[in-house]
Protein backbone atom coordinates (compact mmCIF):
# COMPACT_ATOMS: atom_id res chain seq x y z
CA UNK A 1 0.00 0.00 0.00
CA UNK A 2 2.91 2.34 0.70
CA UNK A 3 4.11 2.10 -2.92
CA UNK A 4 0.62 2.70 -4.30
CA UNK A 5 0.22 5.66 -1.98
CA UNK A 6 3.56 7.18 -3.03
CA UNK A 7 2.71 6.71 -6.70
CA UNK A 8 -0.74 8.27 -6.37
CA UNK A 9 0.55 11.24 -4.41
CA UNK A 10 3.37 11.83 -6.91
CA UNK A 11 1.02 11.73 -9.88
CA UNK A 12 -1.48 14.07 -8.26
CA UNK A 13 1.27 16.44 -7.15
CA UNK A 14 2.75 16.61 -10.67
CA UNK A 15 -0.73 16.91 -12.16
CA UNK A 16 -1.53 19.87 -9.94
CA UNK A 17 1.40 21.84 -11.38
CA UNK A 18 0.57 20.95 -14.96
CA UNK A 19 -3.01 22.08 -14.54
CA UNK A 20 -2.05 25.35 -12.85
CA UNK A 21 -0.34 27.17 -15.68
CA UNK A 22 -2.59 30.20 -15.39
CA UNK A 23 -0.73 32.69 -13.28
CA UNK A 24 -3.64 33.87 -11.20
CA UNK A 25 -4.22 33.89 -7.47
CA UNK A 26 -6.58 31.20 -6.44
CA UNK A 27 -8.85 30.76 -3.50
CA UNK A 28 -10.67 27.44 -3.42
CA UNK A 29 -13.87 27.95 -1.52
CA UNK A 30 -14.01 26.32 1.90
CA UNK A 31 -17.53 26.60 3.28
CA UNK A 32 -17.53 26.60 7.05
CA UNK A 33 -20.83 25.86 8.85
CA UNK A 34 -22.88 25.48 5.66
CA UNK A 35 -26.11 24.43 7.39
CA UNK A 36 -26.10 27.55 9.57
CA UNK A 37 -26.02 29.91 6.58
CA UNK A 38 -28.45 27.76 4.60
CA UNK A 39 -30.97 27.99 7.45
CA UNK A 40 -30.65 31.78 7.48
CA UNK A 41 -31.36 31.96 3.75
CA UNK A 42 -34.02 29.22 3.74
CA UNK A 43 -35.71 28.99 7.18
CA UNK A 44 -38.25 26.54 5.76
CA UNK A 45 -35.63 24.18 4.33
CA UNK A 46 -35.60 20.70 5.79
CA UNK A 47 -32.59 19.39 3.93
CA UNK A 48 -30.17 19.97 1.08
CA UNK A 49 -28.40 18.03 -1.64
CA UNK A 50 -24.85 18.70 -2.83
CA UNK A 51 -24.58 18.92 -6.61
CA UNK A 52 -21.12 18.90 -8.19
CA UNK A 53 -21.04 19.40 -11.92
CA UNK A 54 -17.94 18.89 -13.99
CA UNK A 55 -17.24 21.76 -16.40
CA UNK A 56 -16.27 20.77 -19.94
CA UNK A 57 -13.94 22.90 -22.08
CA UNK A 58 -16.91 24.14 -24.14
CA UNK A 59 -18.88 25.07 -21.07
CA UNK A 60 -15.86 26.83 -19.56
CA UNK A 61 -15.47 28.92 -22.71
CA UNK A 62 -19.16 29.83 -22.66
CA UNK A 63 -19.02 30.82 -18.97
CA UNK A 64 -15.84 32.88 -19.31
CA UNK A 65 -17.12 34.59 -22.46
CA UNK A 66 -20.19 35.75 -20.60
CA UNK A 67 -18.87 36.31 -17.08
CA UNK A 68 -15.13 36.81 -17.33
CA UNK A 69 -12.22 34.60 -16.39
CA UNK A 70 -12.84 32.10 -13.59
CA UNK A 71 -10.22 31.65 -10.90
CA UNK A 72 -7.98 28.61 -11.34
CA UNK A 73 -9.34 25.96 -8.99
CA UNK A 74 -12.89 26.89 -10.02
CA UNK A 75 -12.58 25.95 -13.70
CA UNK A 76 -13.08 22.20 -13.56
CA UNK A 77 -16.10 21.74 -11.30
CA UNK A 78 -19.07 23.81 -10.14
CA UNK A 79 -20.71 23.01 -6.84
CA UNK A 80 -24.09 24.21 -5.59
CA UNK A 81 -26.77 22.98 -3.21
CA UNK A 82 -30.42 22.19 -3.86
CA UNK A 83 -32.67 23.12 -0.92
CA UNK A 84 -35.68 20.94 -0.08
CA UNK A 85 -38.63 21.40 2.24
CA UNK A 86 -40.16 18.70 4.45
CA UNK A 87 -42.21 17.40 1.48
CA UNK A 88 -38.97 16.81 -0.47
CA UNK A 89 -39.93 19.66 -2.80
CA UNK A 90 -37.18 21.83 -4.29
CA UNK A 91 -37.46 25.37 -2.90
CA UNK A 92 -34.23 26.99 -4.01
CA UNK A 93 -30.49 26.92 -4.43
CA UNK A 94 -27.45 27.93 -2.41
CA UNK A 95 -24.05 28.71 -3.86
CA UNK A 96 -20.87 29.34 -1.87
CA UNK A 97 -18.47 31.64 -3.67
CA UNK A 98 -14.89 32.81 -3.20
CA UNK A 99 -13.43 35.79 -4.97
CA UNK A 100 -10.20 37.68 -4.72
CA UNK A 101 -10.25 40.77 -2.53
CA UNK A 102 -7.49 43.30 -2.06
CA UNK A 103 -5.64 41.29 0.59
CA UNK A 104 -7.10 37.80 0.45
CA UNK A 105 -10.22 35.78 -0.26
CA UNK A 106 -13.74 37.09 0.15
CA UNK A 107 -16.07 34.16 0.90
CA UNK A 108 -19.79 34.66 0.54
CA UNK A 109 -22.99 32.65 0.11
CA UNK A 110 -25.88 33.37 -2.28
CA UNK A 111 -29.42 32.03 -1.91
CA UNK A 112 -31.65 31.74 -4.99
CA UNK A 113 -35.26 30.82 -5.66
CA UNK A 114 -36.12 27.94 -7.99
CA UNK A 115 -36.42 30.64 -10.69
CA UNK A 116 -32.79 31.50 -9.91
CA UNK A 117 -33.49 34.92 -8.43
CA UNK A 118 -31.39 36.08 -5.50
CA UNK A 119 -33.10 36.07 -2.10
CA UNK A 120 -30.09 36.89 0.02
CA UNK A 121 -26.32 37.14 0.27
CA UNK A 122 -24.17 36.52 3.33
CA UNK A 123 -20.52 37.44 3.61
CA UNK A 124 -18.91 34.41 5.30
CA UNK A 125 -15.40 35.62 5.87
CA UNK A 126 -13.04 38.30 4.63
CA UNK A 127 -9.86 39.92 5.90
CA UNK A 128 -10.13 43.27 4.18
CA UNK A 129 -9.82 46.89 5.26
CA UNK A 130 -12.67 47.76 2.93
CA UNK A 131 -16.02 47.48 4.73
CA UNK A 132 -18.29 48.61 1.88
CA UNK A 133 -19.01 45.13 0.53
CA UNK A 134 -20.22 43.92 3.97
CA UNK A 135 -22.96 46.53 4.32
CA UNK A 136 -26.53 45.23 4.12
CA UNK A 137 -27.61 48.24 2.04
CA UNK A 138 -25.18 47.09 -0.68
CA UNK A 139 -25.99 43.38 -0.43
CA UNK A 140 -29.77 43.95 -0.40
CA UNK A 141 -29.57 45.57 -3.83
CA UNK A 142 -29.10 42.13 -5.36
CA UNK A 143 -32.38 40.72 -4.04
CA UNK A 144 -34.72 39.83 -6.87
CA UNK A 145 -31.97 39.90 -9.48
CA UNK A 146 -31.36 36.66 -11.35
CA UNK A 147 -29.86 35.01 -14.37
CA UNK A 148 -31.78 37.38 -16.68
CA UNK A 149 -29.90 40.34 -15.20
CA UNK A 150 -26.36 38.99 -15.66
CA UNK A 151 -25.53 41.50 -18.44
CA UNK A 152 -26.84 44.39 -16.33
CA UNK A 153 -24.92 43.29 -13.26
CA UNK A 154 -21.70 43.13 -15.27
CA UNK A 155 -21.94 46.87 -15.95
CA UNK A 156 -23.29 47.67 -12.48
CA UNK A 157 -26.67 48.68 -13.89
CA UNK A 158 -29.09 48.80 -10.97
CA UNK A 159 -26.34 48.81 -8.35
CA UNK A 160 -25.91 52.18 -6.66
CA UNK A 161 -22.82 51.80 -4.53
CA UNK A 162 -19.19 52.77 -4.25
CA UNK A 163 -16.92 50.70 -6.50
CA UNK A 164 -14.16 49.24 -4.37
CA UNK A 165 -12.02 46.11 -4.71
CA UNK A 166 -14.40 44.39 -2.26
CA UNK A 167 -17.70 45.42 -3.84
CA UNK A 168 -16.30 44.64 -7.31
CA UNK A 169 -15.29 41.17 -6.10
CA UNK A 170 -18.81 40.48 -4.82
CA UNK A 171 -20.45 41.70 -8.05
CA UNK A 172 -17.98 39.72 -10.15
CA UNK A 173 -18.59 36.62 -8.03
CA UNK A 174 -22.36 36.90 -8.35
CA UNK A 175 -22.11 37.30 -12.12
CA UNK A 176 -19.86 34.23 -12.40
CA UNK A 177 -22.00 32.03 -10.14
CA UNK A 178 -25.27 33.00 -11.86
CA UNK A 179 -23.67 32.39 -15.27
CA UNK A 180 -22.30 29.00 -14.24
CA UNK A 181 -25.65 27.97 -12.74
CA UNK A 182 -27.49 29.12 -15.83
CA UNK A 183 -25.22 27.38 -18.37
CA UNK A 184 -24.46 24.21 -16.40
CA UNK A 185 -28.00 23.88 -15.09
CA UNK A 186 -29.39 23.92 -18.66
CA UNK A 187 -26.75 21.49 -20.00
CA UNK A 188 -27.20 19.03 -17.14
Amino acid at each position, binding site marked *: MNLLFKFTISILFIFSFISSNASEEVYPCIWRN*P*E*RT*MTRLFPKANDYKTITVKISEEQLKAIEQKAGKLLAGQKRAFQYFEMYNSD*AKLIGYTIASTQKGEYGAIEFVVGLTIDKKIIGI*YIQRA*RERDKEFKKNAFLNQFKGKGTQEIDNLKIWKGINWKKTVGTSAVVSGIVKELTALDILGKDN
Partner: protein
Amino acid sequence: MGKLIPVSIIALLLVLHAESAYSFQIDAEADARHKTEEFRDHDTELYRASLGLRHVFSDVKGDRLLLLCWLESRHNFKETSAEQAYAQYKGPMGRWNITAGKFLIPFGLAVNYDTEPLLVDNNTEESLEIKYDSGIKVSGQLGNFDYAASVTQGIDESRILDNDRDKLAAFRTGIIGDDFEDFNLGLSGTIGSVFSDDNKSYKKLIALDSIKYYDLFVFRAETIAGKIDKSNVYGVFFGTDYMLFPSFDLNISFNAFKHEILNKSALFGITYNTPFYGFVIRAAHKVTFEEKNNESFIQVYNKHTIYF
Protein backbone atom coordinates in the same frame (compact mmCIF):
# COMPACT_ATOMS: atom_id res chain seq x y z
CA MET B 1 -6.14 -5.56 9.91
CA GLY B 2 -4.43 -2.18 9.92
CA LYS B 3 -4.84 -1.80 6.16
CA LEU B 4 -8.24 -3.48 5.97
CA ILE B 5 -10.38 -0.49 6.94
CA PRO B 6 -8.88 2.11 4.58
CA VAL B 7 -8.55 -0.37 1.71
CA SER B 8 -12.19 -1.41 2.18
CA ILE B 9 -13.35 2.19 2.14
CA ILE B 10 -11.25 2.99 -0.95
CA ALA B 11 -12.65 -0.09 -2.74
CA LEU B 12 -16.19 0.88 -1.76
CA LEU B 13 -15.66 4.42 -2.99
CA LEU B 14 -14.30 3.21 -6.33
CA VAL B 15 -17.25 0.88 -6.84
CA LEU B 16 -19.73 3.55 -5.86
CA HIS B 17 -18.07 6.04 -8.20
CA ALA B 18 -19.44 3.92 -11.04
CA GLU B 19 -22.91 4.66 -9.76
CA SER B 20 -22.59 8.37 -9.10
CA ALA B 21 -20.20 10.31 -11.29
CA TYR B 22 -20.30 13.77 -9.81
CA SER B 23 -19.89 13.49 -6.06
CA PHE B 24 -16.54 11.74 -5.82
CA GLN B 25 -13.81 14.05 -4.55
CA ILE B 26 -10.06 13.51 -4.20
CA ASP B 27 -7.87 15.86 -2.16
CA ALA B 28 -4.09 15.58 -2.27
CA GLU B 29 -1.59 17.44 -0.12
CA ALA B 30 2.19 17.55 -0.18
CA ASP B 31 4.26 19.29 2.48
CA ALA B 32 8.04 19.51 2.06
CA ARG B 33 10.18 21.13 4.77
CA HIS B 34 13.72 22.21 5.31
CA LYS B 35 14.68 22.51 8.97
CA THR B 36 17.74 24.11 10.50
CA GLU B 37 18.46 23.47 14.17
CA GLU B 38 20.65 25.86 16.14
CA PHE B 39 21.62 27.42 12.80
CA ARG B 40 23.83 24.39 12.13
CA ASP B 41 22.10 21.08 11.55
CA HIS B 42 20.06 20.87 8.34
CA ASP B 43 17.39 18.44 7.32
CA THR B 44 15.12 18.38 4.25
CA GLU B 45 12.28 15.92 3.85
CA LEU B 46 8.84 15.33 2.46
CA TYR B 47 7.35 15.94 5.87
CA ARG B 48 3.80 14.97 4.99
CA ALA B 49 1.85 13.66 2.01
CA SER B 50 -1.89 13.08 2.25
CA LEU B 51 -4.62 11.65 0.10
CA GLY B 52 -8.29 12.17 0.89
CA LEU B 53 -11.21 10.41 -0.78
CA ARG B 54 -14.77 11.58 -0.26
CA HIS B 55 -18.14 10.45 -1.55
CA VAL B 56 -21.64 11.69 -0.73
CA PHE B 57 -24.82 9.66 -1.19
CA SER B 58 -28.09 11.50 -1.52
CA ASP B 59 -31.68 10.36 -1.35
CA VAL B 60 -34.73 12.25 -2.63
CA LYS B 61 -34.67 14.54 0.41
CA GLY B 62 -30.99 15.42 0.49
CA ASP B 63 -27.45 14.38 1.37
CA ARG B 64 -27.61 11.28 3.55
CA LEU B 65 -24.38 9.38 3.79
CA LEU B 66 -20.83 10.67 3.63
CA LEU B 67 -17.89 8.29 3.25
CA LEU B 68 -14.43 9.67 3.85
CA CYS B 69 -10.96 8.18 3.93
CA TRP B 70 -7.83 10.26 4.61
CA LEU B 71 -4.44 8.58 4.25
CA GLU B 72 -1.27 10.23 5.43
CA SER B 73 2.41 9.45 5.09
CA ARG B 74 5.15 11.25 7.01
CA HIS B 75 8.89 11.67 6.94
CA ASN B 76 9.67 10.61 3.38
CA PHE B 77 6.94 7.94 3.37
CA LYS B 78 8.42 6.16 6.41
CA GLU B 79 5.17 6.23 8.40
CA THR B 80 1.87 5.68 6.59
CA SER B 81 -1.50 5.44 8.24
CA ALA B 82 -5.19 6.09 7.76
CA GLU B 83 -5.69 9.32 9.72
CA GLN B 84 -9.43 9.27 9.19
CA ALA B 85 -11.82 6.66 7.77
CA TYR B 86 -15.48 7.06 8.59
CA ALA B 87 -19.08 6.89 7.53
CA GLN B 88 -21.34 9.76 8.54
CA TYR B 89 -25.11 9.51 8.46
CA LYS B 90 -26.52 13.02 8.07
CA GLY B 91 -29.71 14.18 9.68
CA PRO B 92 -31.83 16.98 8.19
CA MET B 93 -30.02 20.31 7.77
CA GLY B 94 -27.11 19.11 9.88
CA ARG B 95 -29.14 19.24 13.10
CA TRP B 96 -27.76 15.84 13.97
CA ASN B 97 -25.18 13.53 12.39
CA ILE B 98 -23.90 10.13 13.47
CA THR B 99 -20.33 9.25 12.60
CA ALA B 100 -18.70 5.85 12.97
CA GLY B 101 -15.08 5.06 12.24
CA LYS B 102 -11.88 6.98 12.81
CA PHE B 103 -12.38 10.74 13.04
CA LEU B 104 -11.14 13.96 14.62
CA ILE B 105 -11.77 13.94 18.39
CA PRO B 106 -14.07 16.87 19.21
CA PHE B 107 -11.83 18.70 21.65
CA GLY B 108 -10.46 22.22 21.67
CA LEU B 109 -9.14 24.54 19.01
CA ALA B 110 -8.15 21.64 16.72
CA VAL B 111 -11.82 21.27 15.69
CA ASN B 112 -11.74 24.59 13.82
CA TYR B 113 -8.02 25.17 13.36
CA ASP B 114 -6.02 22.47 11.66
CA THR B 115 -2.32 23.02 12.36
CA GLU B 116 -1.16 19.93 10.43
CA PRO B 117 -0.34 21.87 7.23
CA LEU B 118 1.15 24.76 9.22
CA LEU B 119 4.43 25.33 11.04
CA VAL B 120 2.50 26.25 14.20
CA ASP B 121 2.19 23.76 17.08
CA ASN B 122 -0.82 23.66 19.35
CA ASN B 123 -1.22 21.83 22.67
CA THR B 124 -2.93 18.67 21.37
CA GLU B 125 0.24 16.58 21.58
CA GLU B 126 0.94 17.58 25.17
CA SER B 127 -2.63 17.39 26.47
CA LEU B 128 -4.68 14.79 24.62
CA GLU B 129 -1.69 13.15 22.85
CA ILE B 130 -3.93 11.82 20.09
CA LYS B 131 -5.88 13.82 17.54
CA TYR B 132 -7.82 11.12 15.69
CA ASP B 133 -9.44 8.05 17.22
CA SER B 134 -11.92 5.29 16.41
CA GLY B 135 -15.42 5.19 17.83
CA ILE B 136 -18.79 6.87 17.50
CA LYS B 137 -19.61 10.56 17.38
CA VAL B 138 -22.85 12.54 17.45
CA SER B 139 -22.61 16.09 16.15
CA GLY B 140 -24.70 18.84 14.65
CA GLN B 141 -25.62 22.47 14.18
CA LEU B 142 -28.53 24.16 15.95
CA GLY B 143 -28.85 27.83 15.04
CA ASN B 144 -25.71 29.62 16.21
CA PHE B 145 -24.58 26.61 18.26
CA ASP B 146 -22.70 23.55 17.19
CA TYR B 147 -22.05 20.44 19.26
CA ALA B 148 -20.16 17.17 19.08
CA ALA B 149 -19.74 14.30 21.53
CA SER B 150 -17.79 11.09 21.04
CA VAL B 151 -16.80 7.85 22.70
CA THR B 152 -13.64 6.36 21.27
CA GLN B 153 -11.02 3.74 22.03
CA GLY B 154 -8.33 6.12 23.27
CA ILE B 155 -5.43 4.68 21.27
CA ASP B 156 -2.80 6.08 18.95
CA GLU B 157 -1.76 4.85 15.47
CA SER B 158 0.32 2.00 16.86
CA ARG B 159 -2.85 0.04 17.62
CA ILE B 160 -6.05 -0.75 15.74
CA LEU B 161 -8.08 -2.18 18.60
CA ASP B 162 -8.06 -1.38 22.28
CA ASN B 163 -7.19 -4.24 24.60
CA ASP B 164 -9.09 -3.02 27.63
CA ARG B 165 -12.40 -1.48 28.48
CA ASP B 166 -10.99 1.99 29.13
CA LYS B 167 -12.41 4.43 26.64
CA LEU B 168 -12.14 8.14 25.96
CA ALA B 169 -15.19 10.40 26.01
CA ALA B 170 -15.01 13.91 24.57
CA PHE B 171 -17.37 16.74 23.78
CA ARG B 172 -17.24 20.22 22.36
CA THR B 173 -19.94 22.84 22.11
CA GLY B 174 -19.44 26.11 20.31
CA ILE B 175 -21.17 29.34 19.42
CA ILE B 176 -20.65 31.31 16.23
CA GLY B 177 -21.14 35.06 16.35
CA ASP B 178 -23.57 36.92 14.14
CA ASP B 179 -20.95 39.38 12.93
CA PHE B 180 -20.31 37.74 9.55
CA GLU B 181 -19.48 34.47 11.36
CA ASP B 182 -16.11 35.96 12.30
CA PHE B 183 -16.23 34.96 15.95
CA ASN B 184 -16.17 31.42 17.29
CA LEU B 185 -16.09 30.34 20.97
CA GLY B 186 -15.96 26.74 22.16
CA LEU B 187 -16.03 24.76 25.40
CA SER B 188 -14.67 21.22 25.45
CA GLY B 189 -14.17 18.42 27.90
CA THR B 190 -12.64 14.98 27.86
CA ILE B 191 -12.35 12.10 30.30
CA GLY B 192 -10.84 8.66 29.89
CA SER B 193 -7.72 6.69 29.07
CA VAL B 194 -5.31 7.29 26.24
CA PHE B 195 -2.70 4.77 25.11
CA SER B 196 0.06 6.58 23.25
CA ASP B 197 3.75 5.79 22.61
CA ASP B 198 3.45 2.63 24.74
CA ASN B 199 2.22 4.67 27.71
CA LYS B 200 -1.24 4.74 29.19
CA SER B 201 -2.56 7.78 30.99
CA TYR B 202 -5.89 8.86 32.42
CA LYS B 203 -7.08 12.30 31.41
CA LYS B 204 -9.62 14.73 32.77
CA LEU B 205 -9.36 17.96 30.79
CA ILE B 206 -11.44 20.99 29.93
CA ALA B 207 -10.63 23.56 27.26
CA LEU B 208 -11.85 26.94 26.12
CA ASP B 209 -11.06 27.97 22.55
CA SER B 210 -11.80 31.02 20.46
CA ILE B 211 -11.19 32.40 16.97
CA LYS B 212 -11.81 36.01 15.98
CA TYR B 213 -11.36 37.75 12.67
CA TYR B 214 -10.84 41.51 12.84
CA ASP B 215 -9.83 43.71 9.94
CA LEU B 216 -6.60 42.15 8.60
CA PHE B 217 -6.06 40.07 11.74
CA VAL B 218 -7.06 36.61 12.86
CA PHE B 219 -6.72 35.82 16.57
CA ARG B 220 -6.81 32.30 17.94
CA ALA B 221 -6.55 31.23 21.58
CA GLU B 222 -6.94 28.10 23.68
CA THR B 223 -6.71 27.38 27.40
CA ILE B 224 -6.58 23.82 28.74
CA ALA B 225 -6.68 22.69 32.37
CA GLY B 226 -7.22 19.46 34.24
CA LYS B 227 -5.46 16.31 35.32
CA ILE B 228 -3.32 13.74 33.58
CA ASP B 229 -3.13 10.77 35.96
CA LYS B 230 -2.53 12.47 39.31
CA SER B 231 -0.77 15.56 38.01
CA ASN B 232 -2.46 18.92 37.57
CA VAL B 233 -1.87 20.28 34.08
CA TYR B 234 -2.57 23.52 32.28
CA GLY B 235 -1.73 25.01 28.92
CA VAL B 236 -2.29 28.10 26.83
CA PHE B 237 -2.00 28.81 23.13
CA PHE B 238 -2.22 32.18 21.46
CA GLY B 239 -1.70 32.83 17.77
CA THR B 240 -2.31 35.65 15.37
CA ASP B 241 -2.08 36.09 11.62
CA TYR B 242 -1.84 39.54 10.04
CA MET B 243 -2.05 40.38 6.35
CA LEU B 244 1.13 42.43 5.89
CA PHE B 245 0.25 43.06 2.26
CA PRO B 246 -1.69 41.10 -0.38
CA SER B 247 -0.74 37.40 -0.34
CA PHE B 248 1.64 37.82 2.61
CA ASP B 249 0.63 36.80 6.09
CA LEU B 250 2.64 37.41 9.26
CA ASN B 251 2.25 34.51 11.73
CA ILE B 252 3.02 34.76 15.45
CA SER B 253 2.20 32.18 18.11
CA PHE B 254 3.01 31.34 21.71
CA ASN B 255 2.54 27.99 23.39
CA ALA B 256 2.92 26.93 27.02
CA PHE B 257 2.04 23.63 28.66
CA LYS B 258 2.75 22.41 32.16
CA HIS B 259 2.65 18.73 32.94
CA GLU B 260 5.69 17.66 34.93
CA ILE B 261 7.63 20.71 33.76
CA LEU B 262 6.54 23.93 32.11
CA ASN B 263 7.42 23.99 28.39
CA LYS B 264 7.13 27.25 26.47
CA SER B 265 7.74 28.00 22.82
CA ALA B 266 7.17 30.88 20.43
CA LEU B 267 7.02 31.02 16.66
CA PHE B 268 7.48 33.92 14.26
CA GLY B 269 6.83 33.33 10.58
CA ILE B 270 5.61 34.51 7.23
CA THR B 271 3.25 32.85 4.71
CA TYR B 272 3.20 33.58 0.99
CA ASN B 273 0.11 32.48 -0.98
CA THR B 274 1.60 32.05 -4.44
CA PRO B 275 -0.34 32.70 -7.67
CA PHE B 276 -0.48 28.95 -8.28
CA TYR B 277 -3.56 27.02 -7.19
CA GLY B 278 -3.11 25.63 -3.65
CA PHE B 279 0.62 26.36 -3.56
CA VAL B 280 1.92 28.07 -0.41
CA ILE B 281 5.43 28.89 0.84
CA ARG B 282 6.12 29.49 4.52
CA ALA B 283 9.15 30.39 6.58
CA ALA B 284 9.30 30.46 10.37
CA HIS B 285 11.61 30.56 13.35
CA LYS B 286 10.69 28.69 16.53
CA VAL B 287 12.23 29.16 19.95
CA THR B 288 11.79 26.56 22.72
CA PHE B 289 12.59 28.37 25.93
CA GLU B 290 13.38 25.59 28.42
CA GLU B 291 15.61 23.67 26.03
CA LYS B 292 17.05 26.95 24.67
CA ASN B 293 16.52 25.52 21.21
CA ASN B 294 16.25 27.47 17.94
CA GLU B 295 14.68 25.94 14.85
CA SER B 296 14.11 27.55 11.46
CA PHE B 297 11.80 26.15 8.82
CA ILE B 298 11.08 26.67 5.15
CA GLN B 299 7.98 24.91 3.93
CA VAL B 300 6.63 24.31 0.44
CA TYR B 301 3.02 23.17 0.56
CA ASN B 302 0.60 22.21 -2.18
CA LYS B 303 -3.02 21.13 -2.01
CA HIS B 304 -5.15 20.02 -4.92
CA THR B 305 -8.75 18.85 -5.31
CA ILE B 306 -10.21 17.00 -8.24
CA TYR B 307 -13.71 15.69 -8.87
CA PHE B 308 -14.83 12.57 -10.66
